[in-house]
């Protein structure tokens, strides 16, 4: 079983995933891209946070102009080797200016959490036995970074210049 | 008529990558000491039994391979397994074939 890690702490998940053919409950929901594209107007008109779940082959550009009316984008890792979601998260933060939650779900390794964090993920669906200490460790193993990313962190070049 | 083909089971020791051969529930380092399975059933049973050592993080990459019996000894059919059993053909001073290599039997 899994639990939600959000902004560095475990949290209850207010969102409910809704199948394409199921009736929409009240409250925070997550729908597939297909359903979002089909029922966009009515979904956005609901007075509750909306999340869309993207498969690894689906670019966030497919969300259209309303991406910032979403509260959550869920990016799937069908297999940890499929690294497309790293680019999707970066795109959401940088090109699309998305400020909501970007959540990693599926098959990913503890050792990928650091990279996910850098490109803009701020929530993870993790196994029940995953600890905050492991999370902190994953983020802290490599102190400095050579290249800029969506996290806006200072790079080694910046640190060198400010010595 | 080609002589019959039998199976043996091999893997690599996780810690050091050394090539191993299954023998009666354990692993040996020399192909000559390894077990030749009389039939597919025995081979598959050994592969299944070997999973405990994979799950137990002792070995990796376990698989069955073909051998023929020549002069009473198992000889791999494929060049790859011959090289794996002996060592690089271009460096006879390295690998299990090396004169300095000890022939170690019956342990993991």
């Amino acid at each position: 079983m899994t639990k939600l890690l959000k902004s560095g702490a475990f949290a209850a998940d207010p969102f409910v995933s809704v199948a394409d053919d199921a009736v929409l409950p009240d409250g925070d929901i997550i729908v597939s891209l297909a359903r979002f594209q089909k029922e966009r107007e009515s979904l956005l008109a609901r007075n509750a946070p909306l999340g869309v779940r993207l498969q690894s082959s689906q670019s966030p550009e497919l969300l259209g102009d309303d991406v910032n009316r979403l509260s959550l984008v869920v990016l799937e890792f069908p297999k940890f080797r499929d690294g497309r979601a790293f680019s999707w998260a970066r795109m959401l933060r940088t090109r699309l200016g998305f400020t909501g939650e970007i959540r990693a779900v599926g098959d990913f390794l503890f050792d990928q959490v650091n990279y996910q964090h850098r490109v803009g993920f701020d929530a993870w669906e993790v196994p029940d036995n995953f600890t905050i200490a492991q999370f902190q460790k994953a983020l802290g193993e490599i102190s400095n970074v050579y290249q800029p990313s969506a996290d806006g962190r200072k790079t080694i070049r910046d640190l060198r210049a400010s010595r | 008529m080609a002589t019959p083909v039998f199976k043996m089971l091999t893997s690599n020791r996780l810690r050091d990558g050394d090539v191993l051969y299954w023998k009666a529930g354990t692993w040996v380092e020399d192909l000559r000491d390894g077990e030749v399975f009389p039939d597919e059933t025995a081979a598959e049973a050994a592969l299944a039994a070997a999973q405990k050592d994979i799950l137990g993080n002792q070995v990796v990459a376990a698989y069955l391979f073909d051998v023929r019996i020549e002069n009473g000894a198992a000889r791999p059919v494929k060049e790859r397994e011959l090289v794996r059993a002996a060592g690089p053909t271009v460096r006879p001073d390295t690998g299990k074939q090396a004169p300095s290599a000890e022939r170690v039997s019956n342990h993991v």
Partner: protein
Amino acid sequence: MYRYDEFDAKFVAERVEQFRGQVARRLSGELTEDQFKPLRLMNGLYLQLHAYMLRIAVPYGTLSSRQMRKLAHIARRYDKGFGHFTTRTNLQFNWIKLVDVPDILAELASVEMHCIQTSGNCIRNVTADQFAGATPEEIEDPRPLSEIIRQWSSLHPEFVFLARKFKIAVGATPHDRAALQFHDMAVDIVKNEQGRVGYKVIAGGGMGRTPYIAHVMSEFVEREDILAYLEAVLRVYNQDSRRDNIHKQRIKILINAIGPEEMRRRVAREFDEIKRTGSLQLPQAELDRIAAYFAPPAFEALPDAMPLLDSKNGGDRAFENWKKTNVHKHRAPGYAIATISLKAIGQVPGDASADQMDAIADLMDKYSVGEIRVSHEQNLVLPHVKQKDLPAIFARLQAIDLATPNAGLITDIIACPGLDYCDLANARSIPVAQRIAKKFADLDRQHDIGELKIKISGCINACGHHHAGHIGILGVDKKGVEFYQLQLGGSGAEDASIGDIMGPGFGEHEIAGAVERVVNVYLKERKTGERFLDTYRRIGMAKFKEAAYEQVPA
């Protein structure tokens, strides 16, 4: 050459500790092999036929003597006393134990070396011309840009789980010694019509199952834009590559599927966005700062005076022969570039023993400002030697069996490790190289034949670059027997071409004879000044094929 500052040092040190933790988690079972495999690959650790193989990065092929001595030490302490220089200018050790790797990485870190991203589906070692900084041909030294690319690509969070590996090369000369057009992406340092230096970027080249020559992505990228442009290419690749078929996941497949024009359009779009954010601009000051590490040594004012026959060297043709092939023109008068061939006749191509490495380190210190280069042709190059020191260098090389005078000749064969070492191989490649080398050992014959690049791969993955061989040989497994297919007319130089497949393969004991018959056709048909490659391009396959498949009388 580049020297780590405290940030670089900390980076590799932390990487070592990270891997130490990952190894512990693997041994305890917290990580399964499936989970551990990408992690160990990104630290250069493969499980091969006999043991683990560790691939050590040699960025743009440059090593210091201190680093060479450390490699010798590692060979002795953790391996079987020798290492193998690869076609991506890295060094491989074949007999490594997993449990030793964290300590090996720590030893490497102590001399500013690492194994980061030498395998795995990520950006790999950046390679460059082995004559960089020494050749008079270059527009500028390609290594500062190579170092900048190396840093930018190190643990790049967006690109560590690409669809497949990604290989980058940098060039700066009209004569391409780095096989740029066979890389996933390459940067060619060029001058525009106004004489301004910038970068031509090409992408989509590759070897393997389906070889391709790269397409131009941009004829001229301004200096300050280069990282933004490279990131744009990687981003399009990461987003748009297939992920459903491992044989169709290199960038060459993507570009050929959508067409180079569409690829350029997608890259341009990403590039415009990145450039607007400004986060990846490369200021001239940074380029200058890195370039300063690669400033040439202070060359003495010496006259150009190549030493002649020296009776101390046995007074014979050995030194003259070596000079003919293994010594190249240097930008500074009185200096030379000296190639150490790792292709001694009958030896394993690209291998060097620990003792040889130590002796080479001494040579580096004494004669080449402590520096050496690795070429993608699996040889070593002393970049800055004085012409007057050449006799002494040659004598020393003779003493350690590294004076083979065959650079660029038919016995200077590239061969992958093949089925003797590699888990992926279908056939052995090294014995074929040895057999061919022995057949053509006569030096007069080699000089008569002239430049002929033979490249041998033991499987379709083409690590021996056989598609780019003037004569390429591919080992295949035909019903359990090793067979060798011939390809003719490939080239990895600026005149890049993919070799043409001749036909059915030859057996292990036939292939050298077939090669000989092919060479004899060249000798018969050539016009003055033609290399093998030129004659092949002029007359085509037919006569070569006919001769190759001729039955040799018993």
